[in-house]
C-alpha cells in the first residue's frame, strides 16, 4: 500500500512539473503579435504556470510530512488546484479568436489532460495515505 502511494506521490511531482514547465516551454500559448503585444491567451498561460508552481511546491512538500493525514490534506488541496487549472484556459481567461490557433489546439488540451491526471493521482494518493494512516 505504502509503495503504491509513493509511486502516486512521485507521479504527482512529475505531472506538476510537466504542467508548470510544459506550459511555459512545450505547449505554450500563441506567440506575441507582430507589434510585440501579447494576445489574451498569454495571460492564461501565465496563470497556468503560476498554478503549476503551486502544485509543484505542494507535491514536494508532501514528501516532507511523515503523517498520512497531513499528506492526504495537501493532496486534496492539489486536487482543488488542478480543477482550477482546468478552468483557466478559455473559461476564466479567454483564449484567442480562432480555435485553430495554438492556444486552443495545443495548450488547452494539454493543460486539460495533465490537470485531469493530477486530479486522479492526488485523489488516489490521498485515499491511499488515509487508508495507510487508519491501518485498513
Amino acid at each position: 500500500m505504502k509503495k503504491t502511494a509513493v509511486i502516486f506521490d512521485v507521479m504527482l511531482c512529475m505531472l506538476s512539473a510537466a504542467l508548470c514547465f510544459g506550459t511555459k516551454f512545450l505547449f505554450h500559448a500563441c506567440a506575441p503579435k507582430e507589434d510585440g503585444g501579447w494576445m489574451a491567451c498569454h495571460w492564461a498561460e501565465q496563470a497556468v504556470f503560476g498554478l503549476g508552481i503551486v502544485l509543484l511546491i505542494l507535491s514536494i512538500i508532501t514528501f516532507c510530512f511523515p503523517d498520512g493525514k497531513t499528506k492526504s490534506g495537501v493532496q486534496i488541496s492539489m486536487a482543488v488546484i488542478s480543477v482550477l487549472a482546468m478552468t483557466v484556459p478559455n473559461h476564466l481567461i479567454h483564449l484567442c479568436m480562432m480555435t485553430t490557433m495554438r492556444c486552443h489546439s495545443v495548450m488547452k488540451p494539454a493543460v486539460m489532460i495533465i490537470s485531469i491526471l493530477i486530479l486522479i493521482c492526488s485523489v488516489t494518493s490521498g485515499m491511499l495515505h488515509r487508508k495507510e494512516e487508519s491501518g485498513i
Partner: protein
Amino acid sequence: MKFSKSLPFRNLAGKPVRTTVLILLTALLSLTVFGGTLMIISLKTGLHSLESRLGADIMVVPYEATTKANLENIVLQGATGYFYMDNARYEKIADCDGIGQISAQFFLASASSSCCSVAVQIIGFDPETDFTITPWIQKSYGQELQKFDVVVGNDLNAFVGDTITFYGIDCHVAAKLDKTGTAFDTAVFTNQETIKALIQSSLDLKMNTFQNIDPEKVVSCVMINAAEGYTVEEIVNDINIHVKKVKAIQTKEMISGISDSLAGISDIISILILVVWVLGVVILLLAFTMSVNERKKEFAVLRVIGASRNRLAGIVMQEALLTCLSGSIIGTALGLVIIMPFHQMIEEQLNLPFLLPASGKIIGFVIAAVLVSVLSGCISAAASAFRISRIDTALILRGDN
C-alpha cells in the same frame, strides 16, 4: 472463485514483465488500428464536407485573383484576402448560356480589431439568389439575417448573442455554424447589405487595399450551377472566352489537389496499419509459443493432477484474452486521448480538411478496434493452446521434451 485467485490471472501476475510486454504490444496494435482508421475516416469526412460546402459547379473570380496565387488558399485553406470586380461583369456572366443558378459573393478580411487577435475572412452573400451558403446556415439558424447580423464558423471563439466589431461596426452574432472541418470554420458570414457597409467602413478608415471601389458596384466572385442539358466544361469555356478579365474555374478542379494529398496520406496510413498489424500478430504468435514452451512442465503437472486437455487450452486462451483485452482497452483509450483533444492541431499540421465523425461512429470504431485486437491475440494464442492440449505428459515430465 474470485477472479484475482483464478489460475490464468495468477499466472499473469506471476510474470509481470512478460505480461506487461504482451499488454503493451496489444495496446500498440489497437492504437494503430483505431488511430489510423479514425484519421482516414476524418480526412474523408472532411473532404466530403468541403465538396458539399463549395456547393457550386463553377466559381468565377477576377483574373487578378488567380494570378496572385492566393485564390485556393482563400477558398480552401482559410487564408484571409479579398478581390473585387465590377457588377457589369456579373451581368455579362449571367447572360451566358447554360447558367442554371447564379449568385454573387463578397469577400473582406477583418483587421486585427477588438474582437479578434487575428484577421478573419468575412464572406457576404445575396440571400435572394444564394444557393451555396444559405442551405447550411439554415441548419443552424432558421431565420433571415438582419442588417449587422453575422453567422460565425465553428472554430471562432464567439457565441450567439456576442457582439464583434469589424472596422468600427458592431455586429451581432446570430448563429454559430456546425463544424465542417474546412476553411469555412474560421470565416464569418453575413448578408450583402452588412458586408457592403463593412467594405465602405474599411474604405473610410483607409484599411482596404482597394481604395477606388464603390461597394454598391462590385462583387468578389460569382458562384454558378450549370443548367440541365449543359456541361460544366462548356459553360467554363464560354465564360472564359466571352467575359473579359475574369477566370471561370471548375470547383472540382480546385479540390483535386486536396483529393490527391488525401489519397496519398490515406495510403500511407493504411500501409502503416497493415505493417504494424502483421508485425504485431507475428510477435504475439512467437510470444505465446515461447511462453507455452517454457511452461510445458507446469502444464504437464496440471494434467497429472486431473486437469482436462480442454482445461489446459482454456488456461492459455484465458491468459491471451486477459492480456489482449486490457492491452486493447489501453491502446484505444490512448488513441482517444491523443486524437480527440488534439484534433485541431492534427488538422493544422496536415493542412487538409479534417472532420471527426459523429460520437456514435467513434464509439463503434472503439468497439471494433478492441474486438479486432482481442481476436488477433486469441488467434495467435490458439495454435499454442491446441499444442499444449496435446502434450505427452510422461515425456515432458521425464524431461525428454
